[in-house]
Each structure stands twice: as C-alpha cells, then as structure tokens.
C-alpha cells in the first residue's frame, strides 16, 4: 500500500505489507502447533504409564482371575515396612555413592591425562568411547565371563592380588564381593562418559586463563586445583546429574550378572521392582516400587537442576 502522494518512505515494501497474522491453531506462527506432535506423544507414552502406575499402586492383581482389586494404601504401608525393600534401597544408595565417586575421580584423572596431549591422543579417545556404546546386555555378558571364578581373567587378577578368594569369587559364592563385581562393569562402561565431558570442559577453558596462571607462577598441580577445576564446575555438575539419574535406575547389569543374588546382596530398587512385577506377578506392589523410584529420581534430578541453575 503505497502512500497516496506516491512518496516512498525508505522502507522496503515487504515490511509495509507485513502478512496479516492469521489466527487459529493451524498457523505456522503458533508454537503449540509445532510442539503438539511430540508433546501429545510424550503425554500419552510417559504421563499415561505414570498415572496408570499410580492407580495400580493402589490395587492388587489377582493372577487367577486376572483382575485388579482396589486395596487402598496397603501397598504403600507394606512398602515402608518391607525389609527386602529397605535392603534394596540401601544397596542402591551404596551403589550410587561408590560408583559416582570412583567414576568422577577416575574420569577426571583420565581426562587430565588425555588433555596433556600424549602421543596418539585421537586413537586413545576413540578407544575409550567404545565401552560406553556397548550394549549393557553385551557388557554384562562379557563381564560375566571375565569375572568367572575359574576362567575369568579379572577374577584371576583379583585372586592373585588377594582381594577375593577361590571360595568367595567376585560373582558367586556367598555374595560378599558381588556388588563389587557389578560395580566393575558400571565403572568400566560409564567412566568414559565423565572423561569425555571433562575433556570437552577442559577444551572450552580459554588458554589465556591457563597462561595467566602460568605467568603468575602456578605449578601444574595448582593450575589444576585452583584454576581448571573451578572452571569445570558446570560440566561436572551436568555429568553428575546424568550419572546420578542412571545409577539410581541401574537394572541391566544386575539382571545379567547376578540376578540380584547371591542372597539379595546385589538387589537394587529397579531389580526388586522388576522381580515383583514380572517374576512374582505382584503388579500392584511392583507399580508401587516403580512410582517410588520415579518420584525419588525426579526429586533428586530437579532439585539438582534448581540448585545448579541449569538451563537447556
């Protein structure tokens, strides 16, 4: 729409003729139109099961009639008195704390070593990724062989170091070291994750900062503790968040390596929930454990995100 006098103002005509905003949902300027396919899918597939889980946690499944009967809060009161549940909770916490500590320390060490540019650093980085992308089931099987009390070389090394004995191997026996056996797989598979994250963080530190510290006479040790580590806080907190969430849910290794045994020494929450649901067909109680675990993970994850003010 040109001006009546035919005088064009310096603007290109297209801005003057901005397309009149169409109203309605099916308009490509409406963000909800873009978001709806994914959101509908996620609501159906994740909120749906979650709500169904909550509902089921107030019921009991009668296997013979194949029906659910409403039992009120019985499952929940049972849960907090169940000593096997307490055991599973304790083992999960133990598992999370030990694995996280070792993974973070070892991951930091390896990342710093790789960051000091040894020869063949590219090859080493590629090799260290491989454990991470191995299927957990395959990793579990592999370590079941490697920790075999007669033929496994890890068990052989541990026996020679005097950590385990012939009667009490890593996996098997009375189960004293079974959790350690599961932790070995966990640490083997996911320490590289911390390594890669820390490496990414170290690379993003501007060289000026390091040089400035060097000029001020900081030793390599001081440069790490006083300069680099504080700057790694953000990436480390993200790494810990993702490990924390995955560690709380640990299932595959336990299922493949030990099946929770011997004598419940490796039964984590996820595995106990699975035992109830799929082996003992106590769907209601299994769902209760599922809801409990899910809520715990969410509380941990989201308070963590709030505390460290993470943004996506």
């Amino acid at each position, binding site marked *: 729409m040109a001006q009546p006098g035919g005088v064009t103002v310096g603007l290109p005509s297209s801005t003057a003729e901005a397309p009149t905003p169409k109203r309605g949902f099916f308009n490509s300027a409406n963000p909800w139109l873009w978001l709806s396919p994914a959101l509908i899918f996620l609501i159906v597939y994740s909120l749906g099961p979650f709500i169904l889980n909550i509902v089921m946690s107030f019921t009991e499944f009668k296997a013979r009639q194949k029906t659910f009967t409403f039992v009120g809060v019985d499952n929940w009161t049972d849960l907090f008195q169940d000593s096997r549940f307490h055991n599973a909770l304790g083992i999960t916490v133990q598992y999370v704390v030990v694995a996280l500590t070792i993974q973070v320390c070892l991951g930091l060490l390896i990342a710093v070593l790789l960051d000091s540019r040894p020869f063949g650093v590219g090859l080493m980085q590629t090799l260290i990724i491989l454990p991470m992308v191995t299927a957990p089931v395959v990793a579990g099987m592999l370590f079941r062989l490697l920790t075999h009390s007669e033929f496994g*070389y890890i068990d052989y090394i541990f026996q020679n170091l005097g950590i385990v004995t012939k009667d009490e191997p890593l996996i098997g026996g009375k189960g004293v070291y079974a959790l350690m056996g599961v932790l070995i797989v966990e640490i083997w598979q996911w320490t590289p994750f911390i390594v890669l994250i820390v490496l990414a963080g170290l690379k993003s530190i501007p060289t000026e900062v390091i040089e400035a510290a060097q000029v001020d006479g900081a030793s390599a040790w001081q440069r790490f503790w006083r300069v680099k580590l504080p700057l790694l806080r953000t990436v480390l907190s*993200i790494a810990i968040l993702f490990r924390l969430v995955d560690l709380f849910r640990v299932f595959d290794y336990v299922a493949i390596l030990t099946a929770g045994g011997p004598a419940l020494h490796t039964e984590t929450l996820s595995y106990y929930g699975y035992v109830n649901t799929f082996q003992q067909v106590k769907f209601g109680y299994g769902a209760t454990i599922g809801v409990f675990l899910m809520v715990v993970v969410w509380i941990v994850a989201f308070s963590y995100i709030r505390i460290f003010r993470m943004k996506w």
Partner: protein
Amino acid sequence: MATANSTKSRLGVGHKSESEWRSIQRQQHRRQFLNRLLLTIVTGVIVFIFFYPIWFWVTASFKTFTGIFQMPPQLLGFEAIGSWWSTVIGGRSYLEVVHETVGANAGTGGGGTVGYYIVPFLVNSAITGLLSTLVVISVATPTAYALSRFNPSGKQNIIFFILSTRFMPAFAAVLPLTQIYRFIGWDDTRIGLVLAHVLINLPLAILLIKSFFDDVPTDLDDAAMVDGCNRWGAFWRIVIRYVIPGMGAAAVLCLIFSWNEFLFSLYLVRIPDLSTLPVFLSGFDTASGGTEWGFLAAAGTAAMIPVFIFILFVQRSLIRGLTLGAVRG
C-alpha cells in the same frame, strides 16, 4: 640471539657459546619428549585397561577352544579359527561346531538345544531401530525448531517435562505399557516396540537437535520471512539445511540406543520372531561350563561391531547427545 642474551642477563649466567645454547635447547627438547613419552605410557596403560575387555571378546571369537581359556590370555598371534562365526552368522549346526572345536565328548552339556544363529535377530534389531529413528527424527526436528525459535509461555516447563521422560526408570514404564498394549491388542507387535523406542529416544533427539538450531542465527529465519516465507517455509526451506549434521548425529545415537535397549524389548515383544538382539543374547546361560564361550564371543562381537562403526561418524557429537545438548564436545 636476542632471546638468549636477555635470558642470560636476567639469570645472570655467564657467557655461553651458541653451540652450548643449542645443546641446552636440545636437552630441554629431550626432557619434554621424555615427559610426553612417560605421559603416553601412563595414559596408554589406563586406556588399554578400558579397551582390553572388548579386545578380549573380539579375539575370543576367533580363538580355539583351549585358546579362550589360556591364562594369561593371548593378545595377538593366537591360532585363529572361524568355527564360532560359522554358526553365529553362517547358521552351521551347533553340535557340529562343538564336536569340531571341543572334542567328541563335550557339547552334550548345557545349551545343547540353544541355537546360536543370530541373523534373524540382527535383522529385527535393525528394522526396529531404523523405524523408530525415522519416527523420532521426523517428530523431533519441528519440535526442536519451535523450542529454539519460539518463546511460548512455560517453555522451561515444557523442557523439564521432556527431560523428565528421559529420567523415567524403564521398568516403571514397562508394566503399564504391557497392560495398555494388551488392552489395545498391541502386545507382541513391532509397532508397539517401535513406539516404545521412540519414547526412549525422543527427549534426546529433541534437545540435541534444539542445541544445533540454537547455533543457527535467527537472522536467517527473519531474512526468509522477509522474503515471503511463513514460519514453516523458513524452517523447511532454509534453516533445516544447517542442522542436517545435527539431525544425522541424533539419528545415529537413536539408532545405537535402540539397538542396545533391553527391558522394553524383553517385555513388549515376547515372541522370537520379533525379538531384538540383546533379548536373544540375554537368554544365553553364561554361567554354565565353557563350551558356549566361543559362540557367545562371536554373537556379542556381532552386536558390537555395527555400533562401533557408526560411532566413528558421530564421535564428536556423542557427549552433546548424551547430555541432551547441555555440553558441547
């Protein structure tokens, strides 16, 4: 030499000839080289400890029956045979291979009835992975664009909701899903499993691709819209071209996670015709005697190799993907 002179005067060192300086320099270089060599050895040993189990597994699939159990294990130069692979990939009879590798009397024990022919399960895994990846990428890309470009009210909450599905314990979702599937008749169907894998991978793909969209300047959209595109046109004709590497990386990661996924595959599909590879592998009894190890090593290696090849292409995006775009590798 200016630098040499200034260093000398600063340190108060006496006069040194040029050749002496050069030898000092050479010494320094040598010390640096030795330091780096030491660093390489230490790092190499640690990396090797992490890599070794995989190497053991791959080589075991080519070792003879006695070779597998040799202690300490042989790294290289072992006698290589293809018998285990001829069953796992080639479909030769289990008993025939056991007879050939272990000896006449063995092989009658555990697992005699187990088939180790994995090709159908490889195919199942590939089909499930490809279909779910296709769905994930086509749903995730527009969503990621919207999350990157628009600012709807409660955007951060939407992102938290997407994250929370990533944090869901698998077994807590499996039980309700089996019930729902039984109700609508989707139990033991491929579409049910594919959609479950979509659930696992969608949060990763959305947030990863969003981080790639965030790297593309919004001026590009504005320019496209000035030129007469609407939002969809700006997205589909212009901006999407710049995130194709990101979409590729997301696709490969989704493929890998679908390939590796265990619990959903185990409970949503319980007929062998549709079972994926990890489910099939988990059925092997590794605790019983050693006759099975060669087959297991070959089957496990067959499951690992495709992933290793794929990961080489997206190595640099791996961390970005695993942290849902929060850390850029």
